């Protein structure tokens, strides 16, 4: 058959223990860093968010196991990567996203995002974002249906959409959402800005009372967790810095051009999934460049494309697509920024990526 591919096939039989260990350790700490964010979102959205987080993570773990078995490989669950994918995916989806759609997203994330390309380290794009982009394209209405944060009944009552029967359309929840919380508009701050030109204040964002995906609103918490990971060298601090910096800079330029039309950089940084994406998604080691210069280019690209899509595209949020595009460009960025002399460390890293 077509076993002509890759000398890497021998790798399967010889577990590279040392590297595996360190990957596990990094991944485990990423999971730890995600837990406070998940906890905050459960406090915001109640049982709906909790069920969503648990279900999607379990689906991801189950899919990973399934593909392990299909390809006859030993279980890779202990590297925590499927758990991270599941948590990130759930955090990036709306809190009341129907569970069956979340399950689809989780399965697609693992299958299309990772397993088909050979598993961890060989994914070409961030698996969680692949899953999200798939359901964004598949269920455009459900993925832009939001529920209010801090509604009084959030710990006793599920959002009506959560338990939508599989393959069926979720019910319209606009009436329910208005009852749950007075004055709820059902639109994210980005959408409100884009279509009504009204800006949410930083205080709105920091209190977590804006409409958003499950894990998007706790900007400070995300930053803190990111700093922890960066301080322990579990993620490359240059990537989030480059993304947030370039996004802020781009926003600043546009604001200078027309202050009435374009919002201030702080709004750009705090709104939508920029913070979560910059800290946890763009930093995925397998899909970001490895050269020092490349990392800066990669981050800057994400920042600029995000702002461009938000300002001029048909969609209100662009972080996800910006990261996916940059993921796809990462090999090219590496190639262009390749230092002339191959360092020892880099060569090893290269292989992993």
């Amino acid at each position, binding site marked *: 058959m077509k076993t002509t591919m890759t000398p890497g096939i021998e790798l399967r039989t010889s577990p590279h223990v040392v590297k595996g260990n360190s990957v596990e350790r990094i991944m485990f700490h990423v999971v730890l860093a995600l837990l406070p964010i998940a906890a905050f979102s459960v406090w915001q959205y109640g049982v709906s968010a909790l069920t969503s987080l648990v279900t999607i993570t379990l689906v991801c773990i189950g899919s990973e196991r399934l593909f392990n078995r299909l390809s006859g490989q030993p279980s890779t669950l202990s590297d925590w990567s499927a758990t991270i994918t599941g948590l990130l995916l759930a955090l990036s989806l709306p809190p009341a996203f129907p569970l069956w759609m979340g399950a689809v997203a989780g399965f697609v994330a693992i299958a299309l995002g990772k397993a088909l390309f050979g598993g961890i380290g*060989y994914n070409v794009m961030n698996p969680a974002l692949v899953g999200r982009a*798939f359901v964004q394209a598949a269920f455009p209405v459900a993925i832009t249906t939001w529920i209010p944060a801090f509604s009084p009944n959030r710990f006793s009552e599920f959002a009506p959409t959560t338990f939508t029967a599989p393959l069926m359309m979720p019910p319209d929840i606009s009436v329910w959402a208005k009852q749950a919380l007075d004055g709820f508009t059902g639109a994210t701050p980005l959408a409100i800005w884009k279509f009504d030109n009204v800006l949410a204040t930083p205080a709105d964002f920091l209190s977590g009372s804006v409409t958003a995906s499950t894990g998007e609103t706790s900007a400070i918490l995300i930053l803190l967790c990111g700093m922890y990971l960066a301080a322990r060298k579990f993620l490359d601090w240059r990537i989030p810095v480059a993304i947030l910096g370039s996004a802020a800079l781009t926003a600043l330029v546009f604001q200078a051009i027309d202050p009435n039309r374009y919002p201030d950089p702080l709004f750009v940084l705090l709104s939508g999934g920029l913070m979560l994406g910059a800290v946890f998604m763009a930093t995925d080691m397998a899909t970001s460049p490895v050269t020092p210069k490349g990392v800066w280019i990669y981050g800057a690209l994400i920042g600029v494309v995000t702002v461009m899509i938000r300002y001029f595209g048909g*969609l209100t949020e662009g972080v996800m*697509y910006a990261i996916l595009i940059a993921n*796809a460009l990462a090999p090219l960025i590496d190639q262009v920024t390749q230092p002339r002399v191959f360092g020892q460390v880099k060569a090893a890293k290269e292989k992993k*990526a």
Partner: protein
Amino acid sequence: MHDSLSQIFIATMLSNNFVLAMFLGLCPFLGVSGKLNTALPMGAATTFVIMVASLCAFGLNWLVTALDMQYLRLISYIVIIASAVQLVEMFLKKTSPVLFRALGIYLPLITTNCAVLGVALFQTAREYSFLQAMTFAFGGGLGFTLALVMMAGLRERLRLAIVPNVVQGTALSLMLAGLLSLAFMGFAGLGSGG
């Protein structure tokens, strides 16, 4: 249509990318995207030929319309594109052997690239003016190149991966193309001037 040039350019390059959104030029896209160092010249050659074809088609459309012989449009397009590619090939051979050696092998492939005929047909259907047509062709060619180069980068990277046996070959390329296409959906609406 009253689309501005910049709108046409952005739309054809990104949101309506020839390969990833309109499925034009898939055969060379899947065939020549294995390696980065061939992807770029192929993209450049295709862009060039698309521009030439667009130019020819614009003149030809004017002629065919003036003579009221629309039924000959398709046949004259394909004939003139095929001859144009031949002429370009001969011209390059004579004037710039270096460029010819770089692009030569791709030129015959391009004749049957549906992106080339596609440009001619779409610019006619959309009744683009001369400048609009040229912008359309240029943006389309660049978009094709961009998709080709991105694809080549990903495929080169995956050469090290332990891809499961059943996913090898065209299926893998199509999966990658699907992912790229999914990512490019983020550009939807860009260039619509909304």
